[in-house]
């Protein structure tokens, strides 16, 4: 493949890498213990608490760093669930016969009518509020979206003449999927899964903000924002820091997705 110079991709990788770096550093070093409440309540940014402390006296920088792990983990977990199940379901529908395909795509249309966040609320309602429930729910909500996209892509490939040629020469279905379908559809899938990663991170933050995600000891950015809301006037860093990091992470993956799309599809490259 020809090397593509893409500022979008590079910028996205830098932003995303920054959050990954914060998460990695938090694994080996933290300024304070996450449950240390001895910092004095709601102190302003300065020394020794660079971003200040929250209403329980915990160091905000520490909380935000731990939050990076949770955000990345939630995004990755949800994309893993939604990606695997969605692609499997999509390939299956793509290959299904006419009326079965009609029925399944009607079902997908209905499932898509349940937006991810509502579906997530439903799962959290039935189970209890936890990070696992939230990630599972967001992942399941993603399945229909990924499946519908995969189905369209599979259909497009199957309509090609080389598939007819392969079938007439006796190639089996499994070989067609692994040899022709998947190699043709993965670039578009990867781009969309990257976008879904960003959607999942925002959905986890929203659920945690509503009190339907990770319960208190976990430093989810969404829950930090919810807790800091009441004290935004005295300690604005509690609202600014998690929000900016969310922005950096989601902007990063969105730019990566845009850059990849341009790199993988030369016909789009000229339209900046």
């Amino acid at each position: 493949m020809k090397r593509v110079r893409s500022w979008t991709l590079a910028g996205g990788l830098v932003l995303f890498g920054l959050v990954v770096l914060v998460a990695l550093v938090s694994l080996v070093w933290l300024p304070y213990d996450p449950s240390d409440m001895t910092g004095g309540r709601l102190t302003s940014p300065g020394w020794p608490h660079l971003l200040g402390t929250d209403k329980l006296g915990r160091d905000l920088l520490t909380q935000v760093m731990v939050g990076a792990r949770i955000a990345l983990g939630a995004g990755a977990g949800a994309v893993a669930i939604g990606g695997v199940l969605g692609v499997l379901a999509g390939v299956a529908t793509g290959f299904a016969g006419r009326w079965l395909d009609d029925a399944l795509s009607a079902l997908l249309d209905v499932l898509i009518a349940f937006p991810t966040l509502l579906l997530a609320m439903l799962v959290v309602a039935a189970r209890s509020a936890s990070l696992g429930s939230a990630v599972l729910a967001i992942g399941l909500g993603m399945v229909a979206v990924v499946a519908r996209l995969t189905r369209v892509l599979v259909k497009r490939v199957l309509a090609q003449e080389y598939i007819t040629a392969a079938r007439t020469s006796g190639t089996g279905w499994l070989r067609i999927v692994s040899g022709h379908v998947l190699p043709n559809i993965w670039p578009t899938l990867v781009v969309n899964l990257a976008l879904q990663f960003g959607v999942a991170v925002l959905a986890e933050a929203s659920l945690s903000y509503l009190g339907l995600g990770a319960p208190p000891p976990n430093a989810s950015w969404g829950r930090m924002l919810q807790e800091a809301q009441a004290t935004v006037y005295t300690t604005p860093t509690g609202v600014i820091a998690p929000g900016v990091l969310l922005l950096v992470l989601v902007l990063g993956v969105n730019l990566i997705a845009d850059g990849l799309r341009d790199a993988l599809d030369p016909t789009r490259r000229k339209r900046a």
Partner: protein
Amino acid sequence: MTRSTGMTGYLLRRFGFLVVSLLLASVVLFLLLRLLPGDPANALVSVGADPQQIAAARHELGTDQPLLQQFGSWLRQLATLDLGHSFVSSLPVGPEIVNRLNVTVPLTLAAFVLAVLIALPAGFVAAHRSRTWYGGLLSAVSQLGIAVPVFWVGMILVTVFALHLRVLPAGGFPQDGWSDPGDAVRSLVLPVVTVALVMAASLTRYVRSAALDVLGSDYLRTARALGASFRGAMWRHGLRNGVVPVISVLGIELATTLLGAVVVENVFALPGLGSQLAQAISQHDYPVIQGVLLVSSFAVLLIGFLADLVQRLIDPRLRGRLSGAVAPSAGGTR
């Protein structure tokens, strides 16, 4: 193509599909709430209740009945528009939802209209003037807008306009609802702007993408070569072609706006559908959860139905296809 391409035929088929989808949605909702682990009866009794109390709670809920029988009574409830009673307040769910819609519907519609009013010109300028500084700025701002959580934007706006400048209320809604329209409108200004800004960001990207497709199209170049002015060619050819994919996205966006409202209501302590749902979930109030999710998913399906109809009115080529259209290729859905 043997299918008829007339509008009446299409209307009938699409309406049939809507009815099937509504039924399917109620089945999916029923099954998800019943089959997911977790016993709603536990919500009715206090912690450490003895088995008899739990059994009594199950009986009250009807969850001790066979699944098929439960489904029968659920359908009966739907047919009579009776959504049951709240576990917590014992009030009927249906009227309470209608009451909450008095906040959510104006919030959603106003935010949606404002978002469209921002996004249509912004997206067109971002495409048509992509090489200028303001075209680039518009693209960059919309890129930022799709990367922030909607409730965060709300918090920032509250801090600036309610806490610093003190020009608008930070949250809440008049106790007596719309009886004083001025007060009601004032308390909706910040929530509406919050949702609209975030929605406008993603919508701008779709409009920009559709506009780029139109601006680079052969038919526009041909029209220009035949002597049409840019304005005239855009009006006659560009608009009709460009607007179709945008409408399909508008349908999805209206549904997403509803969701944005659901989250934002919690930022501004508005007594709408969203805060009702969040509260019901934390209290395990199943009839309320079920009712709110049913109403909102029906609304989303109905919006999709209307968006499909409008598209077919504009573009007869689509009438052979049951649902959806070629969506524009911009990223950033949520």
